[in-house]
């Protein structure tokens, strides 16, 4: 090989590496812009009374977002309570029985559910819960968000459990441990970090959803802790305030956006901790 072709190859190697780094940088750039923009606009609105007070009527200065913060936590709690058990058991089913018509059908349903637009999920929850119970409610909002979390949890559970070595199951069964106990006490704990990560990421995903809540949780200017009454949430509040004509409400919307982003960021960091803490080395 002559010297110039070697030099050309080395140059191309370097150039290629440069292109990869440049494009990676470009892809994380918007994230930094968003963070910077929201922080600069929102942080000035955030103080203790902003976090602890209720919203005030138009015209009055001040007011806070405490009801939206509590509402978001309640909606997340309701949706988690019913999507986590369903999602984990469906995930166990898919990873345990990999063939068969019902498995195929289940997987198809999960994939379809994942692809359904969030506004449609909101309408479905409206029909199922709001119309039946005759009132907008935290419960209906939780159902809508739970439907959005479900496919994420099913998939995370399935993928995690599929990676657990067969030897682990055999070790348990060979000790005379029954099949249900093997699943619940050996297989699930071994997959704990992956499953928890899936749950946390799905929460981070739905915590910022607005569309499914428009006809379900509906929003409310008051503090509400009743699951059968309308409830506010951060994204709903942002939506309502940002589309209002009042500049002081715009400021509140920026502040609420900042709080929401910090919450989502916190959840993402928490998943890193979970992975580090419960990661199992096979």
């Amino acid at each position: 090989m002559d010297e110039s072709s070697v030099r050309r190859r080395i140059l191309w190697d370097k150039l290629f590496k440069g292109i990869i780094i440049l494009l990676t940088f470009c892809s994380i750039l918007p994230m930094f812009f968003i963070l910077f923009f929201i922080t600069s606009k929102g942080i000035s609105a955030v103080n203790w009374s902003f976090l602890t007070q209720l919203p005030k009527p138009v015209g009055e200065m001040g007011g806070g977002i405490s009801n939206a913060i509590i509402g978001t936590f309640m909606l997340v709690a309701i949706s988690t309570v019913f999507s986590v058990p369903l999602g984990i058991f469906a995930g166990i089913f898919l990873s345990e029985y990999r063939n068969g018509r019902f498995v195929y059908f289940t997987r198809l349903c999960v994939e379809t559910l994942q692809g359904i637009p969030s506004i449609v999920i909101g309408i479905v929850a409206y029909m199922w819960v709001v119309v039946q119970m005759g009132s907008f409610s935290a419960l209906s909002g939780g159902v809508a968000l739970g439907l959005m979390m479900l496919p994420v949890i099913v998939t995370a559970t399935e993928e995690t459990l599929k990676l657990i070595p067969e030897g682990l199951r055999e070790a348990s069964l060979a000790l005379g441990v029954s099949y249900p106990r093997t699943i619940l006490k050996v297989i699930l704990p071994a997959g704990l970090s992956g499953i928890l990560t899936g749950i946390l990421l799905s929460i981070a995903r739905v915590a910022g959803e607005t569309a499914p809540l428009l006809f379900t949780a509906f929003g409310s200017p008051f503090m509400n802790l009743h699951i059968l009454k309308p409830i506010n949430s951060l994204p709903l509040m942002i939506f309502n305030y940002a589309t209002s004509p009042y500049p002081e409400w715009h400021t509140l919307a920026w502040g609420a956006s900042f709080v929401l982003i910090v919450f989502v960021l916190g959840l993402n960091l928490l998943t890193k901790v979970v992975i580090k803490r419960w990661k199992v080395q096979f």
Partner: protein
Amino acid sequence: MESAVLKIENFSAFFGENQVLKEIDLSISRNRITAIMGPSGCGKTTLIRCINRMHELIPNAGVSGKIFLDNEDIYATDPIIVRRQIGMVFQKPNPFPMMSIYDNVIAGYNLNGIRLAKDEKDRVVEESLRKAALWEEVKEALHRRGTFLSGGQQQRLCIARALAMGPAVLLLDEPTSALDPKATSHIEELIVQLKDTVTIVLVTHNIGQAARVSDFTAFLYLGELIEFGPTGRLFTAPKDKRTEEYLTGKFG
């Protein structure tokens, strides 16, 4: 006459239509080491997985014939009971990765929901680890995860875990095939020591290992039991031509 703890009678095993064991008759003597050897695919692993009813976990698997443990038909007993009486150690060490060494040894009790007092647990753990010749190496680290151990130590941990249940029979499925020579000789010494405590059935594709540790040897070929007898006799004066050819390396 040796007393037989396991009796395998006219036993066949299948994967769907495919017959992988053909009318095996074999009796395993108490407190002896019985080696089952043969080339890859001869059915030796299937045979021991039938003894603790792990074979049936594979879809399409089927069996015919009988296996008796102390005159009790194991195919008429709940498989969960059978597996607590017949322990198994696998090719690849498989300690529970989320558990400490201590919890691994006691796992058979904890996972089965059998409650033991703390000092009873301590006693079972120490005794089992001593039997598995691992106690001295890990007694200071009982609450570290089992997966920090070396491969050979992990395999001895798996042996301790099986012994903790107090099984009548211990099945070893090529227990040293994933280990280096030093760890292998360590495990072989251990197997010989263990026969005072438990009856051992050892599957191996290593002829030397069968010769070194076992009292009886069975030679399986293409799902058939070709020859069975005391190890010394079988290795020095095989009766069947196929056994002789296998031992002299003509196939396998």
